[in-house]
């Protein structure tokens, strides 16, 4: 349940509102539910017109590192599997 999209705060407005940008689309959202101080440049999750929490950008980049390693490992395995297949190829004349 509950669609929510990472968006960047580009302006802090009056009455505890902020302008956020989602891929070039801007809208005003309420900051009423934010526990911590929200600042320009922060990434927040928006749900039905409210910012409900920050996104930890560092954490996302950590995930990226893990995924990159995983892709390298997979490619390596596939490469080995191909070599292996090749080694067992019965048609191969040495």
């Amino acid at each position, binding site marked *: *349940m509950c669609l929510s999209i990472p968006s960047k705060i580009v302006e802090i407005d009056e009455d505890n509102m902020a302008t956020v940008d989602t891929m070039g689309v801007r809208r005003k959202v309420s900051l009423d539910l934010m526990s911590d101080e929200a600042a320009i440049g922060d990434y927040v999750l928006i749900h039905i017109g409210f910012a409900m*929490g920050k996104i930890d950008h560092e954490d996302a980049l950590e995930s990226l590192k893990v995924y990159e390693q995983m892709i390298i490992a997979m490619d390596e395995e596939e490469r080995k599997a191909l070599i292996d297949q090749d080694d067992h190829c019965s048609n191969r004349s040495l």
Partner: protein
Amino acid sequence: MQDDKALFDIFRHPQTIRALSHKIHQEALKLSQPLKIMEVCGGHTHTIMKYGLKQLLPQMIEFIHGPGCPVCIMPKERIDQAIALARMSDTILLTLGDMIRVPGSQSSLVQERANGYDIRPLYSPMDALKIARENPTKNVIFFAIGFETTTPMTAAVILRADQENLHNLYFHINHVLVPPAVCAIMDDSQNRIDAFIGPSHVSVITGSQIYEPIAKRYGTPVVVSGFEPVDVMEGILKIIGQKNENRSEVEVQYSRAVTQGGNHKAQAMIDETMSVRENFRWRGLGDIAHSALRLRDEYAHFDAEVVFSQVLSYEPIDDHKLCICGSILKGLAKPIECTVFGTACTPNSPLGSCMVSSEGSCNAYYRYGSAL
């Protein structure tokens, strides 16, 4: 690459999804028996269907679609209540998104709007304040729906209405809670659910702490995951990891947004304005104790159920006889096992709750195809 696009693209990256699929296949070889995973939340059902993730997983893994669609679980009598409120003179009824499409016992809000009643879908509950201010001679009633994610937004609007002394804005509260529904499903002796993918944005508000009792009591891993395809795949990998190591813990894959304690301010605002109901009837699941919220007595003057009680009926109304939504919501049946799926029951004329909203599992099966 722009940072905000990166935040999407990291978690939708094709190679990463392939790599996770590869890794899941490897790890699943160690499983001793098939794994039934319930994704509690409709948003996850949507992700699984939209991105075709089932096709990337080993046969050993089966998804059971959970009850986490606030539109789907709304019993007909409460939709009838919304209709009754909308039919009062000088009234504007507000609600969110596709709630206006869901049929009650006789009609739906969309139909009533066509009949001339003033019913408006909102993009943000904040707009309720503006509409109430602009229409001082009308009763403006917000038919509030949603799980823990959407509840604090209603609370914020109530607190603002209170501050502003708005006397013509009322709330019909249908906010429901995830843990009691999960427990109700697990306590049903027939179920065989081995693990849960925990909701993304419910958990942003509540924190991952609310699943601790579930993991302990039922010995099932709960992995709170984000809504992107990479999130769901990594969540599944973590569940398999726990199973292979014989652990049953609450784990957070969606750590970029979810903490253990959640959003304290939002929790405090809910607590300030709402308390737990003794009982709430869920469409398909029936009565579940302490599974929903109501307005606190201090805010009774905002409570549409109190102020307009004379027009509201609480007589339970059951779903169509042939509908098996109850079993689907409990994970005992799949949409395609239902005799009326895609024939008498379609998104345009839904018989049961799971077909009504795009979050519902029958709707997702219908939309994204079950037999590819």
